[in-house]
């Protein structure tokens, strides 16, 4: 009974994913949103590693690395944008950025 079930790993990933999701939903601060999206991406990476581990393939980890890359790139662009927005609107309120609607 020292083995870890795949389902446990996936459930952990799912739980983290949902926490990230709830974070995106409830936080109005754009930085928080960005962070929570990172959590979601990370948990997706966890899921890949669980799956890769199940099949004893390196592919899961490879995917995780690419996710990592993407997360880094995304965060950098996102932060640059946040800087911009802070300059423009003097706030980081996601709800405030609603000049386009209808």
């Amino acid at each position: 009974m020292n083995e870890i079930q795949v389902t446990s790993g996936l459930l952990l990933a799912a739980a983290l994913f949902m926490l990230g999701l709830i974070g995106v939903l409830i936080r109005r601060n754009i930085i928080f949103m960005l962070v929570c999206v990172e959590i979601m991406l990370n948990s997706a990476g966890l899921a890949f590693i669980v799956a890769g581990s199940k099949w004893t393939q390196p592919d899961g980890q490879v995917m995780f690395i690419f996710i990592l890359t993407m997360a880094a790139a995304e965060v950098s662009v996102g932060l640059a944008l946040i800087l911009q927005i802070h300059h423009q609107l003097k706030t980081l309120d996601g709800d405030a950025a609603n000049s386009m609607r209808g």
Partner: protein
Amino acid sequence: MKLWLIPALPLIGSFILIVAGSRLSKRMVAIVGSGSVGLSALITLFTGYKFISTSATSFHYQAWQWMDVAGFSPAVSFHLDALSLVFIFVITFVGFLIHVYSTEFMADDDGYARFFAYLNLFVCSMLTLVLADNFALLYLGWEGVGLCSYLLIGFWYTEEKNGYAARKAFIVTRVGDTALAIGLFMLFQNFHTLNIQQIAAQAPQQWAVGSETAMVISLLLLGGAVGKSAQLPLQTWLPDAMAGPSPVSALIHAATMVTAGVYLIARTHAIFELAPDALMIVGIIGAATLVLAGFTALTQFDLKRVLAYSTISQIGYMFLALGVSAWSAAIFHFMIHAFFKALLFLAAGAVIMALHHEHDMYKMGGLKKKLPIIYWTFLIGASSLAALPLVTGGFYSKDQILWLSLAGEHGNIWFFLFALLGAFITSIYTFRMLFLTFFGNEKTHVGHIPGNGITIPLLILAGLSTIGGFIELPHSFGHFTVFSNFLNPVLPSVSVQEGFESIEWMIQLIAAGVALSGVYVAYIFYIVKPGLSEELKTSAADLHKFWFNGWGFDSLYDKLFVKPFVFISDINKKDIVDLFYDGLVWISNFFNRIFSYTQSGILRWYIMGIVIGGILLLTLGLIKN
């Protein structure tokens, strides 16, 4: 064979007047207008002579094939037999006389050319109607005369009420025409042709007497006839039609067009004879109409309206005659009626013109001296209308109807009594009219003294309405039957019920007595004791009003058909169906608003949307699995 020229000449005349009328001088217009009809009349004479001299049963001429579709192949072709000969004779001659009359009567009118154009077109249509060898062409003429009637009633179009009268005439007759059209559809369905002769020949073979189809078709044809001839229940248009110029009333609304119904029934007598019940209805309609219209005529004060109601009443006689299968009697009365009624209308027109368009009889009077020729001719016409015995044409024609309504094979005592009552009323209102107009004191100054153009046609017509009666004399009077013999190849003669031959002279005596007593009553009321009629009027005011308004038919129809139609049309002016499509637009906009609400521009909202979408997708998967 110049048959086609008879209708074509007036048509050409009309065409010339329409196209070039405004550029022609009045003289030229008169020449073209009356000349074309005159020529037509001449050709009619010539044709009639040839017809009689060759003792042919019919002449036939086909101008061209009108249509030819799937067995429906009416041609523009004319068929002349004794019946149509009588009709074209009356149409062209009376028509010509009225044209001549009009050249003077209308001389001061702006629409001189237009008037003659319409009149010519009318003559053409009427001739087409009676000469048509098939029902389709007959229908063309039928509608054509309706059109001309419309145009001529509304001739003085600047008066709005004339336009309405014209429209009423057209629409009411069209109701009848609809019935006629449906009758034609049924005829075609049964015979696969609309050729009148073929149908007449086939009908007795195809149907037994009393056949239901024959009955229905007869009634539908009757519907057409009733509309055109202003019989119950479609009589309401004719009095209003008096809005037209007097020659129009004379020609169209007295002499010719309104008798088209009589012609139609006579023409299709083969079908009607297969449907005795329908014939009975014809008779009933005739009897009822003649009495109803007579009573109404009693109460009118407008000279022309009296004549209009009298026309309705007289056509009622014709219908009565048709109803008892007294075909030639009906046609005989038609002819005589055409003469004297045209005469009366023309004379009345002359009176009205002389009195500056005064229509009210109570404002006339004493014209006997001022307008002697008019008076005398009017007197002749009136006597004929009242059927004063022996010397008037009307006596002979009406007497025959009275006699056959009792003694004819389909006759009965009720018809006779109605006819008798009608005759009595007729002579009352006729002489009331005469007394009021020409006797007593002068109430309006006479302006225009009629010239030759007016008097000569009057004289000729007076002559005709006197002499005309002598071509058909009853048994008791020498039994001279040129007219019915002449018509015999087309219209079967009527057989008299047994036992009645002997009392014919009695009937004649009664009829003569009734007519004369009517004159006497009128004399009492309007010459001897002028106040009496007023008393009567006030004592029975409601009845008077009821009769005056033509037994309330107008208001009844108004409430029953016109008002509801106009009401429904008006409330639905904006088209209720459109609401449905507006509703669709509204729904679209509603959806738009709802969905637009989701596009709030708020980021978290959009994320929520995605999450909800995800939940839905997963739930769907769970449910379906």
